[in-house]
């Protein structure tokens, strides 16, 4: 009793050869299975595309959010007046043996609202005016990366008082920039890669063949000068950096066309608010004139279309937020107005535990502010101070996108269950058609579990094939998603789905996280197997004698 077929005693042949063989054969020979494969393929591609774009969007939002703030902020969220003793607190933090070593840089910032006016063109715009210490601010966040002139003329952007850099023709009639500006340009040119040089937005309409826009030095200035040529001219005025969308328009390709020259006058009108939150009736709005030094792009349109950055001390003084000592004429008592700032931004050293430092700073602030409450006119401004991580500060912004990401993914996941139903129907039909064959397979000794296994393997095979094709389609689509949009726009300009002004970023995120892709692929396989369960169960219940009775 040892026939060839009996050589391997096995009680349950779950992994029998025929399952693989038959499921692959059915996959190839049953055309109806292609519908199931196509459904899985499309669903996988769809979910992968949606998830990747949303995830990329979220990542960009997070990067930008962090880039705008540094790691931690100390601020009084609930008021425009800011809070007191910011500098003392910064100094104390830096000196603190626990906190100090983690701090890379900390800088105070003032935020206020105002109106920007260009006297030359007599155009007026609303603005969110920030007072920053440029030297510190650029170390705390990514502000510097967005500066336009500073990129091509490194070291030339400042908020300090400055004159107008003017170009002038040489004896040969070639227009050139002032020597220090030209030297900065040469410095950039030397450090730039060939690609960067080719991408530099040199405006050919201007005669000096350089990036950006410069006035020609007026003739009377040239005549008055003992060394006529390109030079800084005009009166000294403090610098201002404007959001790029405040001073430039963007064309369809996303390139900016700037319509203000470096050094142009910019008028800023502000409304000082007293410590108690009153508008100052005595002085009314205050006004100051600045020179346009640079434009800055954070990439967030809402900010770039409103932002104006001026020197911290200057803005503080304009808003009466600086330290002042004076004598009250009525009472003859000495009065002190302590300096105020809206926010302190803190950049931590790499590797620092952001939450731990935040908690330490919170504790520090409580100890720091307590004894000083009695010194100030409005203690509420001190009590309302919060210490937040960049993520907490931007929570509403980030969370909205996070929620959107999961919501959209869930929606598309639900739509994907259509694929499960389709697989269920297709497989049910196949089992219905194949009842006799199932009977045959059982008659030669296949177990019920084994027959069910054929269809579950079949489901898995549909998932493997459909998922693989879908993943490839999804990855390619995401990779070329901007080109796809360009194509749509070319066919019809109205087809632009990604409006940079709506979506903050000019390009659609086009990266696929391989782990996400693998996860979606696995889910597709599991879901396809689930889709085959009902049919597999039906197949397992086929009674061979019934199935084989008739032809």
């Amino acid at each position, binding site marked *: *009793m040892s*026939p*060839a*077929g*009996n*050589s*391997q005693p*096995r*009680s*349950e*042949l779950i*992994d*029998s*050869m*025929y*399952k*693989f*063989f038959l499921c692959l*054969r*059915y996959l190839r*020979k049953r055309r109806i299975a292609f519908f199931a494969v196509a459904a899985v393929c499309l669903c996988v591609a769809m979910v992968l595309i949606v998830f990747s774009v949303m995830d990329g969007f979220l990542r960009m939002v997070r990067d930008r959010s962090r880039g705008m703030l540094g790691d931690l902020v100390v601020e009084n969220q609930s008021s425009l007046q800011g809070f007191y003793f910011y500098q003392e607190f910064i100094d104390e933090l830096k000196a603190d043996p626990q906190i100090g070593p983690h701090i890379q840089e900390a800088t105070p910032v003032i935020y206020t609202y105002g109106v920007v006016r260009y006297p030359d063109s007599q155009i007026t715009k609303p603005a969110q005016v920030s007072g920053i210490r440029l030297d510190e601010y650029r170390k705390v966040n990514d502000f510097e990366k967005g500066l336009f002139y500073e990129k091509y003329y490194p070291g030339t952007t400042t908020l300090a008082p400055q004159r107008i850099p003017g170009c002038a023709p040489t004896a040969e009639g070639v227009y050139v920039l002032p020597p220090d500006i030209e030297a900065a340009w040469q410095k950039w040119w030397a450090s730039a890669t060939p690609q960067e040089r080719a991408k530099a937005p040199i405006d050919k309409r201007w005669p000096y063949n350089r990036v950006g826009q410069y006035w020609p030095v007026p003739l009377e200035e040239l005549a008055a000068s003992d060394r006529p040529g390109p030079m800084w001219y005009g009166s000294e005025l403090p610098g201002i950096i404007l959001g790029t969308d405040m001073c430039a328009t963007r064309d369809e390709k996303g390139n900016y066309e700037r319509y203000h020259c470096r050094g142009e006058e910019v008028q800023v009108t502000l409304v000082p608010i007293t410590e108690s939150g009153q508008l100052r009736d005595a002085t009314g709005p205050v006004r100051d004139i600045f020179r346009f030094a640079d434009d800055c792009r954070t990439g967030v349109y809402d900010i770039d279309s409103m932002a104006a950055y001026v020197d911290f001390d200057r803005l503080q003084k304009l808003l009466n937020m600086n330290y002042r000592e004076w004598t009250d004429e009525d009472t003859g008592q000495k009065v002190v107005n302590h300096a105020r700032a809206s926010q302190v931004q803190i950049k931590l050293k790499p590797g620092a535990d952001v939450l731990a430092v935040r908690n330490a700073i919170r504790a520090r602030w409580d100890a720091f502010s307590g004894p000083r409450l009695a010194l100030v006119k409005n203690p509420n401004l001190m009590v309302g101070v919060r210490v937040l991580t960049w993520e907490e500060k931007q929570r509403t912004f980030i969370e909205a996108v996070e929620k959107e990401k999961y919501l959209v993914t869930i929606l598309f996941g639900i739509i994907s269950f259509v694929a499960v139903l389709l697989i269920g129907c297709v497989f049910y039909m196949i089992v219905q058609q194949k009842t*006799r*064959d199932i*009977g*045959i*397979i*059982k*008659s*030669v*000794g*296949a*177990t*019920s579990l*084994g027959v069910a296994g054929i269809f579950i393997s079949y489901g898995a095979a549909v998932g493997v094939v459909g998922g693989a094709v879908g993943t490839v389609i999804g990855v390619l689509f995401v990779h070329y998603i901007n080109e796809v949009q360009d194509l749509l726009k070319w066919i019809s300009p109205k087809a632009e789905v990604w409006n940079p002004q709506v979506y903050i970023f000019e390009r659609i995120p086009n990266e696929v996280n391989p782990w996400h892709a693998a996860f979606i692929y696995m889910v597709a396989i599991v879901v396809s197997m689930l889709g085959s369960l009902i049919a597999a169960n039906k197949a397992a219940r086929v009674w*061979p*004698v019934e199935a*084989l009775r*008739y*032809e």
Partner: protein
Amino acid sequence: MSDAILHAVNVRKSYILGKVVLKVLKGVSLAVQRGEFLAIMGSSGSGKSTLLHILGALDLPDEGTVVFENQDVFKVPNARRDRLRNVHFGFVFQFYHLLPELNVLENTLLPGMVGTSFLGWFSEGRRRRRYAAELLDRLGLGERIRHRPNELSGGERQRVAIARALVNRPQVLLADEPTGNLDAATGKEILGVLKTLNQEGQTIVMVTHDPVVAAAAHRIVHLADGRVTNRKA
């Protein structure tokens, strides 16, 4: 009885057709000797196919036992019974019952694949393939192994079914009207194949309604009205 390979005792089976209980087998006892060619004869509806299915562990009796090589076929776990069907019994049906998607060789290999694991097939596949091809060659299908069932004649299809039934070298070959769907000449040819197999030692149980076909067997058991009789039905 001492050399009985397959032994049915008092087998009863009924079907429910609507509200009527149809008693198909009313206590059938039967012994199949090793190496025997047994024909079960009876008219249509006499229960002979049902008896064959029960003998081959393809169907369950309501009562009674079937003993194969000293083990009660219906008292072992399902998996063991499936294994019996796979290894120890080979079925040949009137309507051939080949899988249309598979070619001749693949159809023949099917029981072998059912009994072999995926990994086992790598080591055993070649040997099984060779044996199946040999078997098909002996049955005159050597040139047809890549053909699909729908490209074959009835006789050829039945020979494929016989090859499939034999591929795991079963102890008992169970044939249900193997010539029932064939013309006289082809039927005779299939009967010749069965006779030759029997001469080589294969135990065969064949169900038929045709006395001419039954005459090929060593012994004929008549079935009438769900019972074994001595008279011809």
